[in-house]
């Protein structure tokens, strides 16, 4: 096999099958991984959840992860938010001509490790090669199917006044990590991604507190965007206590310098959860028992007024509106 991907690897012939055998099949092999046109799978017993997501992050390797881990975590976490145990996943790669096969192997290896951590099986895949300059390195799409736990009943529309608002760890790390990895700012700081598959803590959380109303993955747009979505979908107001929002010192330092709001920076391993306030203590203690959610904290509550808005109490004891999401993130210039 050559050291780099060529157009021939996407042509469907001998080199394509060589790529599948040496890279993908080696890592993704399981009883359902198929050479046929579609995989044949046992149907789950209860309700199913299905989701898809595409990943085009640049750079593809960053402190604490890579695009492969991200592609598994993104879809696993989306299924988890619906209380669905991730069962099967497909993945499609668009690889740029000239991409290093050794890098592709690293990506596939991370995908395998992350998938097996969760117990989800990669059952089908696709590979296309794009000409040099047509895509940046590698793009990955993953689609996942999960089986919803009998007790789970979550939706962004189910938040109720009186609910506690919880995040499962410190926020804004993935976004900050990627900003720093792009090296556009000339800032040296050690920030690793929070990218992690969260099915296990979610499963334990739902089993302990089936009254969880909302679980949502705070990815692109960050926790702030997710809160605005939920406030709007549920027709409620959200009150945040800014002093309770966990932010790592390194992230606070970098975002402070650049004038960015951590609440609007992407996370890839953080969930926002809403549950009745009397259950919040129990939920937090369950979450804190898992490595990837040990920083879980209550950051606010749901109100019946200020519908569709997120109000924040600030460091000085005032209340102010969290600005609505939607504006491009621009670093300030002085």
């Amino acid at each position, binding site marked *: 096999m050559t050291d780099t991907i060529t157009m021939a690897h996407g042509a469907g012939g001998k080199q394509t099958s060589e790529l599948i055998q040496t890279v993908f099949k080696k890592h993704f092999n399981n009883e359902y991984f198929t050479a046929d046109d579609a995989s044949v799978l046992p149907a789950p017993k209860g309700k199913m959840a299905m989701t898809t997501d595409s990943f085009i992050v640049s750079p593809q390797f960053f402190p604490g992860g890579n695009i492969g881990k991200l592609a598994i975590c993104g879809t696993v976490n989306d299924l988890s938010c619906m209380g669905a145990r991730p069962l099967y996943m497909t993945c499609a790669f668009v690889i740029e001509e000239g991409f290093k096969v050794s890098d592709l192997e690293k990506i596939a290896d991370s995908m395998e490790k992350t998938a097996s951590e969760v117990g989800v099986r990669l059952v089908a895949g696709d590979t296309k090669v794009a000409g040099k300059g047509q895509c940046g390195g590698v793009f990955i799409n993953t689609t996942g199917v999960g089986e919803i736990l009998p007790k789970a009943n979550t939706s962004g529309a189910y938040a109720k006044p009186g609910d506690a608002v919880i995040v499962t760890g410190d926020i804004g790390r993935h976004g900050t990590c990627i900003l720093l990895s792009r090296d556009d700012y000339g800032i040296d700081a050690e920030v690793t991604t929070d990218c992690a598959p969260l099915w296990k803590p979610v499963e334990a959380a739902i089993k302990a507190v089936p009254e969880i109303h909302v679980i949502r993955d705070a990815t692109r747009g960050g926790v702030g965007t997710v809160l605005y979505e939920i406030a709007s979908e549920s027709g409620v107001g959200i009150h945040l206590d800014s002093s309770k929002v966990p932010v790592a010192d390194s992230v606070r330092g970098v975002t402070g310098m650049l004038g960015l709001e951590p609440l609007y920076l992407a996370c890839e391993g953080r969930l926002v959860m809403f549950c009745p306030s009397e259950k919040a203590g129990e939920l937090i203690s369950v979450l804190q028992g898992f490595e990837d959610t040990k920083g879980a904290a209550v950051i606010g509550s749901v109100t019946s007024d200020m519908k569709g808005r997120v109000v924040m109490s600030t460091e000085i004891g005032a209340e*102010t*509106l969290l600005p609505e999401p939607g504006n491009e993130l621009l670093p300030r*210039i002085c």
Partner: protein
Amino acid sequence: MNNAIVRARKIIDNYNGPHMRIMEVCGTHTHEIFRQGIRKILPESIEMISGPGCPVCVTPVGFIDEAIMLALEKNCTICTFGDLVRVPGTEDSLQTARGKGANVKVVYSPTDAEEFAMQNPDKQVVFLSVGFETTTPSNCIAVKNAIRDGITNFSLLTANKTMPGAYEAMKDSTDLFLYPGHVHAIIGTKICEDLVKEGVSGVCAGFTGSELLTAIAVACVKYQEGRPFFVNCYPRVVTEEGSDDAKAIVSEMMEPCDAEWRGMGEIKNSGMKLRDAYSDFDARKKYALPHIDGKANPACHCGEVLKGEIKPPECPLFGKVCTPEHPVGACMVSSEGACSAFYLYGQG
């Protein structure tokens, strides 16, 4: 709340002196004052006014027109901070000019623009050099780097401004200034002491909620004494002398000039331009740009907002046709602009 905040709030809550108008001159202050909700806790007798301290907001319409002319008629690649891309010129912004073929590249520092020029010797690269004393030294460094690297395809279109000019123009519009900590870390505090002699008061403040509130509390105490005053409330960063290195590089390479401020007209000696020795790096001279008088949208009230004469919601365009997504005036474009802050924090 930490002790400093508790103490400051007590002083502010109990303020019973004369009505006091405090102008924050710095866009970062404006943004932080909103983010912390400071305006909401002030008694009626203390009024915050947002002054002209956002470098994007005060950049005149004609400057954008010049940049577009360089891109479209002189075939230059424009490198700029992202905020400027959406600022309206007379007919186009750099964003809409892109659709007409302008090459506009967003960079995060002037030295990135210089490096881009070095890597692309076939392109004529112009960096849009805006900003106050905090940003100007890095623009000079980019030119120094270009000389060091022997590159000739890099130049600056300057609209750098200096704060003392703004203080001079604004001193009658406010009772006291909340001086910007970053700027005075560079230029020192002598100018503030000199202004006291002219009867102009002020406090120099840092940027956290605690630092801002402390500075306002100090202003409350001093203002009641009835005499002009200056207090440096940000001494861990701001010194009387400022930064000699930064001042030295700027005075070596640039000299003061009269400058146009959007909505405020020309203010004498309030700008900086490259000295004649660096003419090769001055885009206006290099490309023999004609003088362009830009025309702002006549319905836009940015000028009055920048002078603190009206609050953003008093502009008839605010929140209706002028929003952060579709800005008519510069104050709505930049995240540091007063209109943008009022809009984003729901205080329309």
